[in-house]
């Protein structure tokens, strides 16, 4: 992993130096805050009704009624912002010609890919830290259990990593950042809604399609369940697109 640290630091610096990161972080946190606030207020309303009705009181569950929708909503916002975080990673280097520096330094291609990926996931994690005050507030108002929350966060992080691995790949295909963002957004949206085809796709095909759906595997995490099958799905997804990026780098070299 020669040079990983140098490239990682450079990438982080570039990410934090660009206004895109701040615009994305701002938007993400405002929307995330709004979702959490709505969920809490709604839960509050239901709690009032539940105080009159013992049957209903039994069904009140913070994880199920506040955090699960919250994590799902984060997933949707993630769909919008992750292409914006990843679009510049390779496209900009190709545009400005700095690829020529990167490619002639003694750096293995896989160090470059991994460092770029690690940097953008780190930047995303920094944004995610911004949602923690909301969770602390929730902890102050009610008494949610922490382990399912951690599981939910792990799910968001895995979902984010998968999205960003795909984003890196589309960024490596072009020197135009907008094209990279549009391609990755389109691909992610397609993978998000592909599950809808399950109903008419036939038995075997339906199962395959269902398995491919990127959001289906998020369900268990949002419920606070750590399922190794879903964990594996996201890991394979990420590794697959990072591998494609690596191959694309080699192809880029050959084409010159």
């Amino acid at each position: 992993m020669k040079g990983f640290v140098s490239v990682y630091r450079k990438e982080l610096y570039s990410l934090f130096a660009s206004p895109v990161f701040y615009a994305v972080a701002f938007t993400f946190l405002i929307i995330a805050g709004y979702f959490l606030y709505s969920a809490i207020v709604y839960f509050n309303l239901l709690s009032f009704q539940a105080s009159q009705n013992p049957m209903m009181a039994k069904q009140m569950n913070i994880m199920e009624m506040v955090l699960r929708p919250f994590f799902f909503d984060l997933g949707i916002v993630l769909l919008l912002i992750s292409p914006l975080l990843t679009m510049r990673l390779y496209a900009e280097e190709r545009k400005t010609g700095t690829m020529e520096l990167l490619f002639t330094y003694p750096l293995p291609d896989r160090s470059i890919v991994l460092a770029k990926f690690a940097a953008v996931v780190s930047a995303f994690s920094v944004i995610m830290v911004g949602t923690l005050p909301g969770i602390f507030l929730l902890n102050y108002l009610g008494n949610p259990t922490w382990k399912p929350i951690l599981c939910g966060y792990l799910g968001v992080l895995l979902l984010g990593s998968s999205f960003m691995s795909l984003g890196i790949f589309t960024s490596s295909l072009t020197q135009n950042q907008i094209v990279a963002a549009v391609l990755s957004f389109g691909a992610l949206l397609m993978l998000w809604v592909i599950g809808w085809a399950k109903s008419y796709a036939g038995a075997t095909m339906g199962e395959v399609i269902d398995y491919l759906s990127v959001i289906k595997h998020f369900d268990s995490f949002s419920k606070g369940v750590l399922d190794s099958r879903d964990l594996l799905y996201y890991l394979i997804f990420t590794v697959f697109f990072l591998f494609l990026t690596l191959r694309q780098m080699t192809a880029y070299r050959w084409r010159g």
Partner: protein
Amino acid sequence: MIEAEGLTKFYGPLPAIRDVTFRVERGEVVGFLGPNGAGKSTTIRILTCYMPPTTGVARIEGLDCFEQSLAVRGRVGYLPENVPLYGELTVKGFLRFAAGAKGVEGKRVESEVRRVVGICGLESIAHRIIGHLSKGFRQRVGLAQALLNNPSVLVLDEPTIGLDPTQIIEIRRLIQELREEHTILLSSHILPEVAQICQRVLIINKGQIIATDTPANLTSQLQKSAQIQIQVRGQAEELASALESLSGVHKVSSAETDNKRFFVETDRSRDLRPEIARLVVDKGMDLLELKLVDLSLEDIFMQLVTEEPSQEDTPS
């Protein structure tokens, strides 16, 4: 040491270079000359492992550029054409990154960065953002990154393009200083520059090496006649015909703006300067100036790149 053997590179169906072969010995400074689009950058990119050749072998210090790419890249300092740099980083920040990427160990990074900043005279701008720098400073930052980790081979693609005359002189001086420790291959289409800095030139045209020698040898090989320029004072009307009657003189012409200035074309085999001087003085005129005009590298270059391609080179 740089070796290229039969390098050929196709972009799609079009060959950018064909069968390029040359050697640069250790400690040599070699100029790589050619018109725009002749294949200079393609050759250089192969040598710096940016891309592999379609066929042929490139070796740096005996290591294969394709098979041992990482080892080669660690030994080459490369200044790409147009100097791509990370505009959002500071000069020091960028050099630190480049040092790390080039495998300078953590403890040595600071001292190594300080060394190249010193060589390239970047102290005053070390903390500025690269995106705000002038072209001349960018060029020097580019050179500084090439020098990091003291590579034995330096490959500079158009190091002086787009600079003003003072900056060009500075960069040239810098390259002169570097020649002692490095093998240098620099490309350029500015000919006087190459003639000044380089011990040897490679001339490439339409993807093929068409000449390689020292500037002096190229001159003497291609020069079919010698030209002597003289300037006189006094009655010069009959001088031209008198000069023409000297044996060995082919042609005498006078300057258009100044009828006291003559260009005498003579045989290369004999040095006619003493005889011309005597003749002028005998005619009762003052000889103000007399010099042998060498064919410039420009003339050679023009001669070479405009020559008709021979039969075998013609694409079928």
